């Protein structure tokens, strides 16, 4: 049911772990899905210099955590902020329908970590559209 890419990413996840000197830390757990993800960011200038994660959840959750942390490396914070679930799904070659929501975890946790970084720096947190997983926030792939 999973694509080769998902299985590969899940079996050999990248960036597992913590960053002791993280500049921002974020945690997300989709309320509609028991999964939990914690992400650690190192920021240099306006760019993400390093990222680590820990995830409790199914293969889709772990694979999307892994792929998302790799995708944001080198991005500006603004770019990372706008990483969409659809992009994560694309990078994984898609997920089976009931698994799509599991991949919301990563973009969610990234935004929490970015705001943690901004707050630590005394900046206003960016405004997050809260994502219910309902597919109407623009992050979810179109239904149909």
């Amino acid at each position, binding site marked *: 049911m999973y694509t080769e890419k998902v299985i*590969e990413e899940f079996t050999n*996840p990248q960036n597992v772990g913590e960053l002791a000197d993280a500049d921002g830390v974020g945690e997300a757990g989709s309320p*509609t*899905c028991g999964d939990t993800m914690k992400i650690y960011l190192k920021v240099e200038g306006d760019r993400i210099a390093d990222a680590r994660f*820990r995830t409790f959840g199914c293969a889709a959750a*772990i694979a999307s955590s892994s792929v998302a942390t790799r995708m944001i490396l080198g991005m500006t914070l603004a770019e990372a902020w706008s990483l969409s679930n659809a992009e994560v799904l694309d990078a994984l070659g898609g997920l089976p329908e009931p698994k*799509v929501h*599991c991949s919301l975890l990563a973009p969610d946790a990234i935004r929490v970590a970015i705001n943690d970084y901004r707050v630590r720096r005394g900046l206003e947190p960016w405004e997050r559209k809260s994502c219910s997983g309902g597919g109407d926030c623009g992050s979810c792939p179109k239904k149909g």
Partner: protein
Amino acid sequence: MNDLEERTLYMDHAATTFMKPEVLAAMAPYFSEHFGNPSSLYRFAGEPRNGVEAARGQVAAAIGAGPEEIFFTAGGTEADNWAIKGVALANRKHGDHIVTSAIEHHAVLHTCEWLERQGFSVTYLPVDEFGRVDPGDVEEAITDRTILVSAMTANNEIGTIQPVAEIGRVAHDHGVLFHTDAVQAIGAVPIDVDAMNIDLLSLSGHKFYGPKGTGALYIRRGTRVETLIHGGGQERRRRAGTENVPGIVGLGRAIELATADIAGHNRRIASMRDRLVRGILDAIPDSRLNGHPTERLANNANFSFRYVEGESILLLLNARGICASTGSACSSGSLEPSHVLLAIGLPHEEAHGSLRLTLGDANTEDDVDYVLEVLPEVIGRLREISPLTPPSPRVPEAE
């Protein structure tokens, strides 16, 4: 650990079994040679008819019933649907209440839910921490509107064996019919429908090395059960549809093989299973065995591993060639733990980290060794990844 090995180690016999060569051999002549419709009048239909009736005798003998009390179905699910809807619809004027347990298979639970939508009421009894139904609870649940008690012989996830004879006696004491889903029990629990007070019993061929898409319902002589599948006059007018002759013949042969030496079979399988259980609980911290310590199917081992999720375990085992099962599933956007694991009181997190290993006739001590080698690594690896893992048990001793 990316070495996708060629090896396939199958430890998911509760999901389905391979078909034994003896079973295929018994079926073989009925595909293209003795292919006649058993209901036909001509001599040529004699072979298929005899094949079907011999199988009926084999099924009857395996559970202490008469051949005229055995009705072939397309599987355990159909048998469960038929038993429960059939009794309910045929006895509506006597009552509208059914007693069952919270840990039944979905074939029973969803059938009961359907009946609730038709105006019946259903009591879903709780089970204890080991998954046992208390016959006293059954007694308390029975009202003068109760027409059926349905309790499975053995649970498919955690392997717990129910006190079926006692539950049946309670039902009979109150003049209530008793159905048991014995799909997981055939070949593992000796069955005698009379001694165990069973009025209806469901079984399924592919759980004991027989063909998929075959099953049977035992209906005690004289029991009022409405037909589920209407049409031709097959199965003494109670279950319509041209008989699946090769399948029925295979089912008969398979149940004969499976029940020839239940005790010996259980001894062999349980000894491997017990070594597996001990090995895993010893090697992996924060792990537990789900189900009953002794009253359980000889082939069943069901574990919970804290801090990790079941599907992840399965897929890493899969990468090492091991086929197993879990009570954790993503369904329509939520991680849903098994109703059985919740019913025995596991918190969601532990219910999610469950793994079922069910042994079968082809498993060997080598298989046990291999699982004992691989599983601690897999759990250790996932605990590395999990944010829930406390510092110490992240890496089991093995690694």
